[in-house]
């Protein structure tokens, strides 16, 4: 077990180097000279040369990659190009609001989808099942933008049940007031795809031999679904949820933007709009690290819930 974790941690190093290399190529070669972006509209050659010296991009590639690695290890990416705020501060202050929206959303969404998928699995291959699945397909086909626009317009702007946007310093106010509509939207958007996926997990299990055994034992259908099937289906569900976790952090950017929630996602958008490379790079690197740890955690949980798995 320990050996497994250590080996997985070691395996992260080449992956991380790959991410660094990818970002380096992307920001230094594909996108053209960052100095011109930083210099803005009015610049002289001397200014450009100065900026290039400061950024270190006049030096050989390996030195620059070295600088990048040092930035990652020391968690010091310098200051934002547009706001001059230290990048590390930006990350620290933006994480809280993001999690305030995402954690309740994740927990509620997953539980809701599991419960509904069990109900649907009971009616598998019936007309009800088919109708629910088609409804899910329609629900998934509507752009998340349309959901946000309409929900914001109807519930916040027209009916004024929720504030249109905003954020406060109090966690409670945020949860009950400002994050409520975003979470509701997130639930509506996420339910259909999750339900479809979880249902397919359940149906995979329903067709297994052990379900036939459970019936031969005389168990009730309810117990078969809620104990035997659910316990097995929880394995792919946990894996899926864990793998989706880091992506969510960024994926909620539209919601954060529409509702002016000062989270990571909104910061990404702002940085992309302002070509604020240090912020993008830092967020990408840390989200990548978070992803790798989430994957490791997913595998460990996988091991915990599935006795067949041997981590070697």
């Amino acid at each position, binding site marked *: 077990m320990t050996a497994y974790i250590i080996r997985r941690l070691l395996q992260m190093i080449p992956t991380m180097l790959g991410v660094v290399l990818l970002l380096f190529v992307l920001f230094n070669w594909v996108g053209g000279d960052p100095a011109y972006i930083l210099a803005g509209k009015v610049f002289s050659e001397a200014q450009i040369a100065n900026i290039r010296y400061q950024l270190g991009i006049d030096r050989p590639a390996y030195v620059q990659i070295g600088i990048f690695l040092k930035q990652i290890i020391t968690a010091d990416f310098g200051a934002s190009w547009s706001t001059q705020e230290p990048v590390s501060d930006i990350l620290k202050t933006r994480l809280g609001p993001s999690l305030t929206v995402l954690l309740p959303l994740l927990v509620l969404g997953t539980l809701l989808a599991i419960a509904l998928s069990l109900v649907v699995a009971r009616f598998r291959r019936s007309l009800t099942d088919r109708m629910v699945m088609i409804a899910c397909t329609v629900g998934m*086909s509507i752009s998340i933008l349309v959901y946000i*626009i309409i929900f914001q317009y109807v519930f916040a702007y027209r009916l004024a049940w929720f504030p249109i*946007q905003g954020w406060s310093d109090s966690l409670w106010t945020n949860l009950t007031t400002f994050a409520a509509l975003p979470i509701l939207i997130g639930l509506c958007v996420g339910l259909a795809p999750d339900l479809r996926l979880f249902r397919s997990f359940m149906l995979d299990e329903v067709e297994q031999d052990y379900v036939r055994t459970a019936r031969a034992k005389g168990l009730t259908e309810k117990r078969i679904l809620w104990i035997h099937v659910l316990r097995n289906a929880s394995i792919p569900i946990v894996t899926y949820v864990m793998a989706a976790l*880091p992506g969510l952090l960024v994926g909620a950017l539209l919601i954060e933007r529409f509702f002016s929630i000062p989270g990571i996602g909104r910061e990404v958008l702002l940085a992309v709009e302002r070509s604020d490379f240090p912020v993008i790079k830092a967020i990408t690197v840390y989200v990548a690290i978070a992803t790798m740890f989430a994957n490791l955690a997913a595998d460990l949980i996988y091991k915990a819930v599935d006795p067949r798995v041997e981590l070697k």
Partner: protein
Amino acid sequence: MRQTHDSSVPETIPEKSGNGFWALAWLRFRDDRVGVVSIIFVAAFFIIVFLSALGAVASDWNKEVGIHDAPPDLWGLLTPVPPPEAMGNAAQRVAQTIKTAQHGEALLPSTVVDPLAETLAQLQGERMEGAFPESRVVDPLAETLRELGAEGMVLSAVEEKNAAKRTSLPFGGDRWGRDVLTKTIKGSQISITVGLSAALLATLLGTLLGALAGYYGGRTDDVLNWAYSVFNAIPYLLLILAVAAVLQQRGVMTVILILGLTGWTGVFRLIRAEYLKHRGREYVQAARAFGVPDRRILFLHILPNVSHVALVKVSLLAVGFIKAEVILSFLGFGVAVDEVSWGSMLNDAYQELILGRWWELAAAGGAMALFVTVFSLLTDAMRDALDPKIRETS
């Protein structure tokens, strides 16, 4: 060591089959009513896309044929109700909103009495800033333009020429008086083309790499897996936004390349697993025992056996990419300013909705929902006919 199962129902193959896998799949597909209906709708969409690409329809989507914010009449089925504000004011209102946003004043038109007015104004201001591609920092002209209130002027100028324009349009008109119907057709063409092309690109790339990794294993697999884990470590949306941030160029080709070159990982994993599975199958072992060259085994023996997986994956990806393109274009990182897609339409529509003009939102959102729905239903039917085991994640 295993005996065959005592299968309760023998394989159901219709009499007089004499056909291969695809013919049988077609028979199964034909039996699926939802699938058949959806394929008709998808075909209709493709015809429109094709005609639009040829320039036969919607080539003049950019022409301002109606008055500003012309209301929809659905060819006379709907009595057009002009919005409460006077028609002609639209341009000035937009200009005013921009100005309001610039000067931070909460000046809303008096028609809207709303306790949340202040917040709304802020919202609009922010929206404007983010929405107009011209307003982005990288554009050196943006600031100057805005200072001059040029947009308002341009709009007013256009408006003067508009005396003879139509007062209502089938699906309504947008803020510049462009026909929402033709705009939707053109937008559909762009969005669908982008989604499908990018999906094709990603699938080709993923299939090729996945085949090599899965079949050869060893070093090849290690290297390709490394590339996979690198791409996979960065959440997809973040990756395409990062690429969009460095690529200053906007346009259809750029979006296709961004989506296609970053989106191959899911296909890679799936196809790699398939090749891994088939490599161990007896028919591949038999081919190897004959000394059939690797290239032949890879592409002649195994590929036809996994091609249906790739096909289903193309359509799953296409849906994902259409959604991604819509978000990118909405945010201004997608199609260029002089192009239109469902995403850029939704951006226009968002601003219009707050002023009570719902029709562009309905048209763009509805067209997308309809297409994606029928396309997804088609994919489902196709998957059921080909191999129900293919998953939609990853």
